[in-house]
């Protein structure tokens, strides 16, 4: 039951936050500084999420097969590979390195 409550609260909260962003009056955004921050915050969060999901293991920092997978993904991005290829390369290299290193 508590899991269902957690699911429901997360769903309502996440939806409310999404709607809030879309519904803030446009006048608030006419300031260049606000516009610049709104453009740069997603850059910061995506960079942080990439790092955390690559090097995080619980609360510890580790360098494991995921780092190799992400390095391969970065190389694929530099070669202008399509999105699906970038993700597939990351998954395949991670699985391969993990299989080889046991």
């Amino acid at each position: 039951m508590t899991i269902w409550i957690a699911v429901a609260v997360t769903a309502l909260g996440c939806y409310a936050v999404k709607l809030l962003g879309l519904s803030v009056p446009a006048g608030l955004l006419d300031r260049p500084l606000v516009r610049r921050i709104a453009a740069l915050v997603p850059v910061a969060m995506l960079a942080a999420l990439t790092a955390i999901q690559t090097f995080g293991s619980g609360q510890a920092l580790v360098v494991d097969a995921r780092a190799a997978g992400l390095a391969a993904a970065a190389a694929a991005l530099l070669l202008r590979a399509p999105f699906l290829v970038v993700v597939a390369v990351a998954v395949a290299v991670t699985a391969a390195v993990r299989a080889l290193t046991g």
Partner: protein
Amino acid sequence: MTTEPLQTPIDRAQGRSRAAVVRDALGVGVAVGLSGFAFGVTSAGAGLSLAQTCALSLLVFTGASQFALVGALGVGGSPAAAVAGALFLGVRNAFYGLRLAQLMRLPRAMRPLAAQWVIDETSAVAMAQPDRSSARLGFAVTGASLYLLWNLTTFLGALGAEALGDPSAWGLDAAGPAVFLALLASMLRGRQETLVAVLAVALALVCLPLLPAGVPVLVSALAAPIVLMLHRRREASP
């Protein structure tokens, strides 16, 4: 690919660019949509039921928050802390919404419908477009394809979890960060963006061992105002 002879060059250019928008959007929607499989497997492995796992993808529909929630519940964290972490992560969608509202100028009645699709991927595709109609098209195509596939693959992943065993043996734990990296790459347009990204990574890695799950990402968001402030100060000095 055939082109119709009666089209003017401008028509063709516009047609091509709309086709290019749809192609980009489907590329993102399909790639990320398929990674719902990784979520389904992870969620089932964390002990959530099939119905709970599917409800998360249908109703929460923001991957990082979903992964954070089931990850915390799976290791026996308190549900309140798990929900807080998921909501913290979801806050960034409000910032995407701010940008998207300005970019797409959606009619008021459309906003409650569009809101559920305001996530990393739809925002990245929409923001990468040169004009309003391409942004709207990119958002809609990415949102629809991603929503359908994400939910379908969540269901299949949760069903197939037992047969598959450990998702990390298949490298599926690298799908999430690879998606984020690809989205990020499309946004790194100038020196300021790169500086923000570098500072955010540094903040995230320093905070990760020190702060509860979900909080380091929020701290990293401070990289944006910090870089802007430093930039202004340097401009102001003689």
